[in-house]
């Protein structure tokens, strides 16, 4: 039986592509060429990629085909993907969406990039993103805003807006992404695709340009949970170059999904706070319908309360800028990156290079971060926020005594229009209302499509115990076997 049957190649997800390659129905060069053609055709206005290198991609694809021929293939050999432009690559530039790194080529490669290359994946290019991963709309990129493939005037979410948009438009079957306060899940929700942020420490941060180090976690966006599982499995594992990388063994998630199984016995906590005022009605309806499907498959829905959850956004917007202000000090115009013309002295070099190199939102967060750490304010802001973070973590610990997963909406609304919030930072930050807590506590979380509101996709979020990605992936995979939201594709071009 044919894997591809009468589907177009871009309708094949990661796992389908592996199967088709294994069956000899298609070559990596054909798959890669198909992606490159679609990028050429559709990305002009979508703007989901900052750069791509067709000849390098085709060369890698040809090498992958040769490896398959000679029986020297890894699990994902020949499957194309795009890297978020926050991961350092030695052949393609790494801009982090910033003028600061407009023409920067990293002299070394991120661990994630090396791992996925070892797993056989073919890099097509680099995905657009909010500058330094700061943003929820992808309007903060020096390389221009990204369109939402479902509605061209709407934002794709952020900061991994390019990754989500290009997967939604099926320009590639998967893209790497990063999540500091919701930057994988929120754009995945806005674009109707599946995205997973694993447990903090699961994926190496080496070579992933830091925004807020104790929150940042790499992950993947793809069309479905089983595609996410395949790529995430190849990305994960201990890295001696990252002191926060976990030594925990990486379970065989693709194998676990292949075994199938329903949801019976699964206890899903539904926090009342996730459905309080502030959540759009249409989103609530779609999420509740999704939860009902899971209940019908044997899961038990357990009403719970996470009273401190709403404090997450306050704690996050103190601690994340604090870490960011320090992380971004290295962009000083001395050893790499933008340097202003004709600096009169060192102070001028620093201040103008940074003011010219960083965009408005990045500068805002650097200023906030410097302020909350400054003498006399540390206890009132930073320390207080870290204490609240501890309380939020305790509340999750307690909840996970009685439930296996926590579920709710990923975002309070569906994708909003470009410009709607760009001059109001706080209302923009509220997009992260349901997502930041998982980052504060390092928990794995996933967003998957569960319906539509105003013709735009709605995301359902699952949060799991630390290092229990397997339950998230299995639940999402089962949901996607009984629903078809994840197979819906926008009409691009």
């Amino acid at each position, binding site marked *: 039986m044919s894997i591809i049957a009468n589907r177009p190649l871009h309708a094949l997800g990661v796992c389908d592509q592996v199967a088709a390659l294994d069956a000899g129905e298609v070559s990596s060069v054909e798959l890669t060429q198909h992606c490159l053609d679609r990028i050429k055709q559709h990305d002009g206005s979508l703007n989901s990629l900052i750069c791509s290198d067709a000849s390098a991609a085709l060369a890698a694809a040809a090498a992958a085909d040769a490896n398959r021929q000679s029986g020297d293939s890894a699990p994902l050999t020949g499957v194309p993907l795009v890297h978020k432009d926050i991961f350092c690559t030695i052949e393609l530039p790494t801009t982090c969406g910033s003028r600061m790194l407009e023409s920067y080529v990293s002299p070394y490669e991120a661990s994630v990039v090396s791992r996925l290359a070892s797993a056989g994946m073919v890099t097509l290019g680099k995905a657009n993103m909010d500058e330094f991963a700061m943003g929820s709309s992808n309007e903060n990129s020096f390389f221009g805003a990204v369109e939402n493939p479902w509605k061209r005037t709407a934002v794709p979410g952020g900061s991994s807006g390019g990754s989500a948009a290009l997967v939604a438009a099926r320009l590639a079957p998967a893209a790497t992404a990063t999540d500091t306060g919701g930057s994988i899940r929120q754009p995945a929700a806005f674009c109707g695709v599946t995205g997973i942020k694993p447990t903090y420490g699961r994926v190496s941060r080496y070579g992933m340009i830091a925004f807020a180090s104790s929150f940042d976690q790499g992950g993947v966006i793809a069309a479905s949970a089983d595609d996410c599982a395949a790529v995430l499995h190849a990305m994960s594992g201990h890295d001696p170059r990252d002191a926060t990388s976990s030594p925990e063994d990486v379970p065989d998630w693709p194998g676990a999904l292949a075994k199938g199984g329903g949801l019976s016995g699964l206890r899903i906590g539904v926090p009342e706070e996730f459905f309080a005022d502030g959540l759009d009605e249409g989103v609530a309806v779609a999420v509740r319908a999704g939860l009902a499907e899971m209940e019908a498959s044997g899961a038990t829905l357990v009403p719970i309360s996470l009273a401190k959850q*709403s404090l997450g956004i306050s704690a996050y917007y103190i601690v994340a800028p604090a870490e960011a202000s320090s992380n971004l000090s290295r962009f000083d115009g001395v050893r790499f990156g933008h340097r202003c013309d004709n600096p009169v002295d060192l102070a*001028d070099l620093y201040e103008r290079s940074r003011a010219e190199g960083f965009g408005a939102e990045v500068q805002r967060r650097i200023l906030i971060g410097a302020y909350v750490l400054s003498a006399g304010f540390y206890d009132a802001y930073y320390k207080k926020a870290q204490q609240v973070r501890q309380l939020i973590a305790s509340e999750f610990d307690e909840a996970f005594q009685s439930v296996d997963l926590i579920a709710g909406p990923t975002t309070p609304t569906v994708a909003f229009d470009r410009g709607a919030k760009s001059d109001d930072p706080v209302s923009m930050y509220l997009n992260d209302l349901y997502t930041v807590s998982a980052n504060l506590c390092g928990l794995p979380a996933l967003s998957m499509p569960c319906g539509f509101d105003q013709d735009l996709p709605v995301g359902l979020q699952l949060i799991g115990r630390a290092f229990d990605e397997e339950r998230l992936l299995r639940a999402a995979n089962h949901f996607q076997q009984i629903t078809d939201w994840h197979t819906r594709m926008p009409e691009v071009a």
Partner: protein
Amino acid sequence: MARIACRAHYARFRGRLAAPRAQVLFTTAPEIPVSLDKDDVRTIAHLARLAVDESRLDALAAELTPVLALVERLNAVDTEGVEPMAHPVSSAMHLRADVVSESDERDALQKPAPAVHEGYFTVPRVIE
């Protein structure tokens, strides 16, 4: 830098948060909201080495104040005796064996540098 009770800022802040989807967050009024003034912004901009035009200081102060005001929600929480959580995972840190693993890659590492001279990075002359 001073923390100033500023009703005007607070009123503006409340006004923004009156949007329906924000209600869930800010149902109780903070007692003493924090505000930044232009001197504060000038000071932190210097700390962060960001050139800010004098004419932009007031506008920036107005943009940043509502963000800082988010912290007022936290003041209502009793955190007496709570250990601050700086890291999301509690496992002990991996320490590295004392081995030289890196060799000289100066040429490659200096390729992105804006200015080098005979192997040195250079900046405008600093007087100590």
